[in-house]
């Protein structure tokens, strides 16, 4: 459609898409898309990101509603955990009779 009025040609807002796979336990970010509103974003996400039988559930959220950490803060936020491997619970033996581990 090249002959629409310029006033309605404004870009649709950007949405981020999260899909939960059939055996996946959590929704995973898979990409982004444009849509006019929330419901259209769900439909678009279905059409764009679940075509190959990937998903059973979709979340969408307006990209401008996401608050993200800044790359400038990378060191103060994340570097301190880089040398604290003891935070993983891998330093003790699990007894054989403990289920679901």
């Amino acid at each position, binding site marked *: *459609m090249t002959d*629409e*009025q310029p006033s*309605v040609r404004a870009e*649709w807002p950007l949405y981020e898409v999260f*899909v939960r*796979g*059939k*055996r*996946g*336990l*959590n929704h*995973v*970010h*898979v*990409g982004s*898309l*444009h*849509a*006019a509103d929330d*419901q*259209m974003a769900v*439909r*678009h996400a279905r*059409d*764009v990101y*679940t*075509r*190959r*039988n*990937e*998903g059973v559930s979709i979340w969408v959220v307006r990209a401008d509603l996401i608050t993200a950490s800044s790359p400038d803060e990378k060191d103060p936020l994340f570097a301190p955990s*880089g040398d604290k*491997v003891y935070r*993983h*619970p*891998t330093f003790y033996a699990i007894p054989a009779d403990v289920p*679901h*581990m």
Partner: protein
Amino acid sequence: MPDTTHGSHPAPDPNAEHGSIFDGLLGSDASQWAFGTDFEDPLAGVDTTIPDGVAPADLAAYCLMLADDALVASHRLSEWCSRAPDLEEDIALANIALDLLGQARLLLARAAAADPAVTPALPAGSPVPPEDALAFFREQEAFRNVRLVEVPNGDFAHTVVRLLLFATARLALLERLAHSRDHVLAAVAAKGVKEVTYHRDYAGRWFLTLARGTEESRRRLLAALQELWPLYPEMTATHDVEARVAAAGVGVDPATAADEVDVVLEQVFAMSGVERPEGAPLAGVRGRTGRDGLHTEALSRMLAEMQVVARAHPLGRW
């Protein structure tokens, strides 16, 4: 402590590289790393014997009607590829076209199985399967689709209106066909119901959006509705073949779904603030319409483009 309710997941490795965004979507089958799993064959375990009490020629003709509606509609939708107003709509229309192509393939194969005489003859040694022979080697007079699906594309509103009319009528039909005595038709219909439900939803939402959008979008929508409405009654008219297969419990008389289709369309029109169009049905020629193989010249041009490569290489392997 990590969440212990899913202990098969190993503790995160602090030295691992950042994973793919598709991690966790894949199930356990890494061989299909970019895709979902558990694909299903819609005809797995289905009894393919031809039911008694129905003439094979009638069953084949009926399957061709259902198949050709889907095939021609699919081709018109696929003409939007790379031309839709937005990338997301481009993919949405292609998805719908592929759903319908899948229905057409199963139905064409069923037509050929019911009555091999419907399949055009091909040179000896041709590897072309029967469903492809029916799609690519029949003349326009042998196509039994309604004329609604064959008229050329217009603007996006035209596609939305056509898809709304088509999907609404087809959904009502498939819901009934899911109880067919022919187990193959029943299975194809059951699969199709889920697909066409989405097609109708897609078209209905866009119909409402365009009707309540700008002056220009509404003007285009109403123009498309005015143009396509005379073709709509053919979707719910009863052909002799349909009457016979319905009487045999194998097919569905579309007239029995007409009221339901009308109610759904009235709801969409009311929500959209659109008057139900007036306008007489497009006449046939001596009572013959698309179901009898009488088509507009647009179909012959469409078929010429759709069939040219297959016809140039009847012995080709793809």
